[in-house]
């Protein structure tokens, strides 16, 4: 892989994960997945958390594989990998805590609702 390609690999992982999760969220809401039970949670949440986790694993794997030292030719790809990983973590953690679809239909998360 060329230097530039390695440098954008991390952000690319974020971009793909972000797009996939967002698309799945829209599709899931349209198809009523939040009403389908999959174990302890809805199918919707399972699908979202699952793809988020895949993205995190991919990001971590990339970070693992990049050499740790060697000036900017190694530094930029590493910074890119960190960017991707942190961005995936930060921008998609709401899959864990927020209400998924049309809130009036979703079961209320009582953690948030005023008593």
């Amino acid at each position, binding site marked *: 892989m*060329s*230097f*530039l390609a390695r*440098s*954008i690999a991390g*952000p*690319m992982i*974020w*971009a793909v994960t*972000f797009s996939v*999760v*967002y*698309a799945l*969220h*829209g*599709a899931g*809401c*349209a198809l009523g997945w939040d009403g389908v039970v999959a174990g302890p949670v809805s199918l919707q949440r399972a699908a*979202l958390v699952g793809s988020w986790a895949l993205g995190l694993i991919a990001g971590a794997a990339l970070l693992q594989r990049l050499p740790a030292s060697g*000036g*900017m*030719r190694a*530094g*930029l790809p590493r*910074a*890119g990998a960190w*960017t991707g990983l*942190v*961005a995936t973590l*930060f*921008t*998609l*953690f*709401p*899959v864990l805590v*927020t*209400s*998924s*679809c*049309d*809130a009036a239909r979703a079961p209320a998360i009582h953690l948030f609702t005023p008593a």
Partner: protein
Amino acid sequence: MTDATIGAAAGTGAAAGEIAANAPQRALGLHRELDRAWANAPGWRGQITAVSHTTLGLRFMATALVFFAIGGILAMLIRAQLATPEGAFLDTEIYNQIFTMHGSIMMFLFAIPMLEGLAIYMLPKILGTRDLAFPRLTALGYWCYLFGGLILIFALLGGVAPHDGWFMYTPLSGANYSPGVNADVWLLGVTFVEISALAAAVEITVTILRQRAPGMKLTEMPLFAWYMLGTSVMMLVGFPPLILASVLLEIERAFGWPFFEVARGGDPLLWQHLFWLFGHPEVYIIFLPAAGALSTIIPVMCRTTILGYGAIVAAIVALVFLSFGLWVHHMFTVGIPHMALAFFSAASVLVAVPTAVQVFAWIGTMWKGRPEMHLPMYHVMGFFLTFVMGGLTGVMLAIVPFNWQAHDTHFVVAHLHYVLIGGFVFPMMAAAAYWMPQITGRARIKGLGETAFWTILIGFHGTFFLMHLTGLMGMPRRIDVYPDNPEWIWLNLTSSLFGFVMTIGFALFALDLVLQAWLGPRSPRDPWRAPGLDWAMRLPPPSYNFASLPGPGRLDGGAQAAQGLARGEGLLPGAPRGRREVLVTGVGSARPEFVAILPGNTALPLGLAGAIGVFVLMMLSGLYWLTLPALALVAALIWVWARGMARGRDAAPVEVAPGLTLPVHTHRQDTLGRTGAVCLLLADGTLFAALLFGVGFLSVVALGWPPPELTGDPELGAGLIAGLVAGLGLGVVAVRLGLRAQGRGGAVLPAAAGLLANLVALACLGWLAAAVLDDPTRHARDALRGVLTGYVGLHALIAAGMAAFALDQARRGEIVGARAGCLPAWRLWQDFAAVTALIAGAILLAQGAGG
């Protein structure tokens, strides 16, 4: 010398760092020789045939300043209207046109062209080359910008300017609610201007990747180049969604194909997604070049080097990506579920991190050095104060609940001006103060610039600081009167008064520029004692920038490097062959690979832009049939354009430095043109992806689905789609056969076969459209099928044109030996056309080939 030995020479002699210096010559003799090859033609002809990046960069910036003045006058009209609750003097229709035009002019006719102009002017000088990769494209971009802008301005003068706000939300901008020509002016005019953005983006990318001075590694190139690389890639990916959206809306308005109309299966939210998919990155497209200027200016003003080069580059990469994941923050109130909002809220918040990294790197640079308060530094301080506040209100707006309150109020108006004026206008003023001596060769007249700065700073904050409160007190944007809200009067009146102060400041600033260019005393060669190749030349810069090109060991530039370069000690000295020659280097290695010959002065770009203009005007006047001759003219001129690149004879290799002889670009496949084609296909691919997003979005989200049954014959449909894909696939094979037969000059037959295959594909497509596809005005699904087919058809048509061009070249004997003619470009295009056709065909089949 045979081709083999040329290749060997390029491979061995060029290792960076071991290029010998050329013997010095008389600088004046070199200058005369170069100027004959590079200068614009004399007189007015020179103005319309110029392709020089120096001329065009300056012209871009000057034109952008004129549009800034027009936009500023409109802003003053807005402020005058809002100064009192009854508004008094503008009626609502005119007011709506004025704020729409203010926003559109500032974004599309001022900010973007301004940054393009700066990049076009500066980049070759900073990178150590003589011009951009595609000089005629620079000129084409300029004319498209000028003509598109003029259309908008004439519409304003004629009272038929766009009036739906700068983001043109449907259905308000649709045919039912905006029946006049106003919305068409926006859609067609802005898209016309966008051609220049794409042209500039392609050029800038290629120039940065391939025309850096030998030895200037990516990891060591000036930060401004990194910023512009990020910007131009963002433009390649960011503009296509807007272009697609504009085309779709124009088709809906002109021909009634529904994409955004709910009753027939469209969705107004599709417009919003596509618009903001462009619109948010746009803000960063505007900010990054400004930040590039800051990263250049701050270290010089503090007599030190930039702190955290690597961190800043990483921040640029992060910004380029993250800024594509924020667009929904403009749509927090459209009724999207909270989780999806949360993704975009988090991304919008996160994007502040790379921005903070840069801001603190700049502050660290200032700590490291000794800041000197020259005029550019005043504007840098204005930037810090204003932009930090704008960034903080940006974070507030990224917080969903707060956004629900502040959205569409004057709070947002305040925020966006803090960001745009703080993050773009102040840095640009710093850049102007910094580079004016470089541009004009003159020093400024003391005092005026500082007065202008203070007037602008005070005027700006006086106008916009209290406007946050105006918004929080409930004043929505885009209203012309507020008779029932006396509590907003003092706020608005204050804003208006200071608005006029700010205008006086900008007038002083403009006066300062004019006086400096006209009356300023001679500037010393290195007024700031800055490093950088942009100062390693005579001031004002000669038409060719460098008499000989800087190489390893001369890259720190500064004025000390100027003399040796002017005497021809660098690479590729003079223009002994009377041609415009530049060096092309490897993307990663920065080693010189070959010499590219650039085209000279020509009026062709003007003609082509004029032909496109005729097309636009015919669309505007509703004379749709007359667009066809205009398109034919466009195609013919493009053919002529391409002929200008063809070369019938072998060009001898060129001695670049003692012991280093390089081939000329016609003997290479990895030409600048090829890199440019890759960039263009990146943009084209994004457009296609945006179209696929539209198909997916409407199929899943829109109401009014499922659509009515298809009525075409399914077997015929499937057959024709198969024929279409097969035809394009055969083209893919043909072009490869052509490349294989290139050496012995046997490309005639493959090219003919390729032409035939593409024509067969086109025939299948025409048949499909005529006999199988349903009336596109029936439902959004059918309209999208029509657009997919049209997209494939256009690409097949161009592929056929390229095959025909190759056939013509092969017949003339221009494809032989090491010369591949247009075959590499055709191969890229044919592959792309085939792949997109395959995808589009699969979608058509999945929707059902017929009834």
